[in-house]
């Protein structure tokens, strides 16, 4: 069993499901011979042919709409937006059709599609190649938003997304595409799409996060542990529909909640979690909720890029503030 990276886990999941289900097809820009600009679809066209791994013309609206059409005909398309910054032209098809077709037709037509996109900053890429815009899809009923943060979760959640009978927007944190390897058995085992992952237990403060920031949160937890503070780390991973119960349970235990995400603060998905805490866990709270997020500015070009992101130090400080507060 090989050790693989997150991006290799994506490829492995795609290859597994394509081999086991003829209706799975992959489409997007440069997904064919080139295997995707990040190599997520590496080798798939060679293995499954040009019909099932299709290089589309350069139009994200086309990709999204054709994906809806494929899915409506019983295929299970996995479409790629080359970067999350190019997903905007897909929004009408995702919001108005993919997420709605089941409801519109009372279940007659469904859209079991996956819309994949590399997500987030931190790789010194040009403009529009480094955004965190997952919240754009979080208020759309009928849609799942998934954002794995490890090779194993990428594999299991992508399998689940493809098999799910409803549309899934699947963001992949590109900063950690190749950050580390782990063993991911290619056993076709999917992970559930409706639970958060508790990555580390702790009794003093709950760190809630997703995507590349999971790493900083785990580091922050280590740093806090050295000072005797127990931080529980929750990887939300399946943002919507949200499994708030896991978060509530943790906050009930710790009384303190720090939410960490890369996207700008205002109306980011962290707001939803903070809101749920304020609604459902108020009597548990020993300190104000903290959000450690990107600032409300556009991701700067790469010189300043990392300064816009939540750092481990900022997370540690916020956690300590919650402890000092009560």
């Amino acid at each position, binding site marked *: 069993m090989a050790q693989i990276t997150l991006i290799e886990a994506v490829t492995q999941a795609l290859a597994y499901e394509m081999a086991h289900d003829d209706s799975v097809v992959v489409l997007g820009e440069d997904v064919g011979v080139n295997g995707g600009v990040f190599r997520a679809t590496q080798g798939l066209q060679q293995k499954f042919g040009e019909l099932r791994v299709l290089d589309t013309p350069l139009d994200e609206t086309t990709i999204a709409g054709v994906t809806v059409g494929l899915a409506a005909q019983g295929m299970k398309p996995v479409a790629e937006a080359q970067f999350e910054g190019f997903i905007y032209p897909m929004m009408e098809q995702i919001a108005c059709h993919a997420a709605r077709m089941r409801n519109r037709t009372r279940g007659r037509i469904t859209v079991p599609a996956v819309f994949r996109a590399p997500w987030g900053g931190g790789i010194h890429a040009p403009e529009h190649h480094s955004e965190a815009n997952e919240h754009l899809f979080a208020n759309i009923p009928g849609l799942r938003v998934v954002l794995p943060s490890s090779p194993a979760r990428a594999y299991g959640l992508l399998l689940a997304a493809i098999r799910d009978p409803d549309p899934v927007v699947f963001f992949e944190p590109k900063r950690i595409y190749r950050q580390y390897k782990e063993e991911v058995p290619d056993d076709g085992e999917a992970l559930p799409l409706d639970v958060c992952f508790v990555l580390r237990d702790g009794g*003093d403060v709950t760190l809630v996060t997703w995507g590349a920031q999971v790493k900083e949160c785990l580091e922050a937890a280590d740093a806090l542990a050295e000072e005797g503070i127990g931080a529980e780390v929750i990887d939300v991973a399946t943002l919507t529909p949200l499994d708030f119960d896991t978060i509530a349970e943790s906050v009930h235990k710790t009384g303190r909640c720090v939410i960490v995400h890369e996207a700008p603060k205002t109306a980011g998905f962290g707001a939803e979690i903070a809101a749920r805490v304020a609604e459902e866990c108020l009597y*548990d709270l020993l300190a104000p909720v903290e959000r450690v997020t990107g600032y409300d500015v556009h991701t700067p070009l790469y010189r300043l890029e990392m300064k816009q992101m939540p750092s481990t130090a900022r997370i540690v400080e916020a956690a300590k503030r919650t402890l000092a507060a009560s």
Partner: protein
Amino acid sequence: PFDAKIVMPGDAPYASPAIRAFARELGVDIRQVKGSGRGGRIVREDVTAYVKHALASGARPVQGAPA
């Protein structure tokens, strides 16, 4: 250096943050207060009653000067 006393998990008294803040202001250890609200929740009156009772009984409810 960080030196706050960590309130232990499960110690959270069943009171809204505002009431806990109110109790802190009066120097009341809210864990000593009994709640009369729905489901045993501590309300403002419980805190003031606790203070009155403590003063009347000559006890010292105040743990220290409010910060």
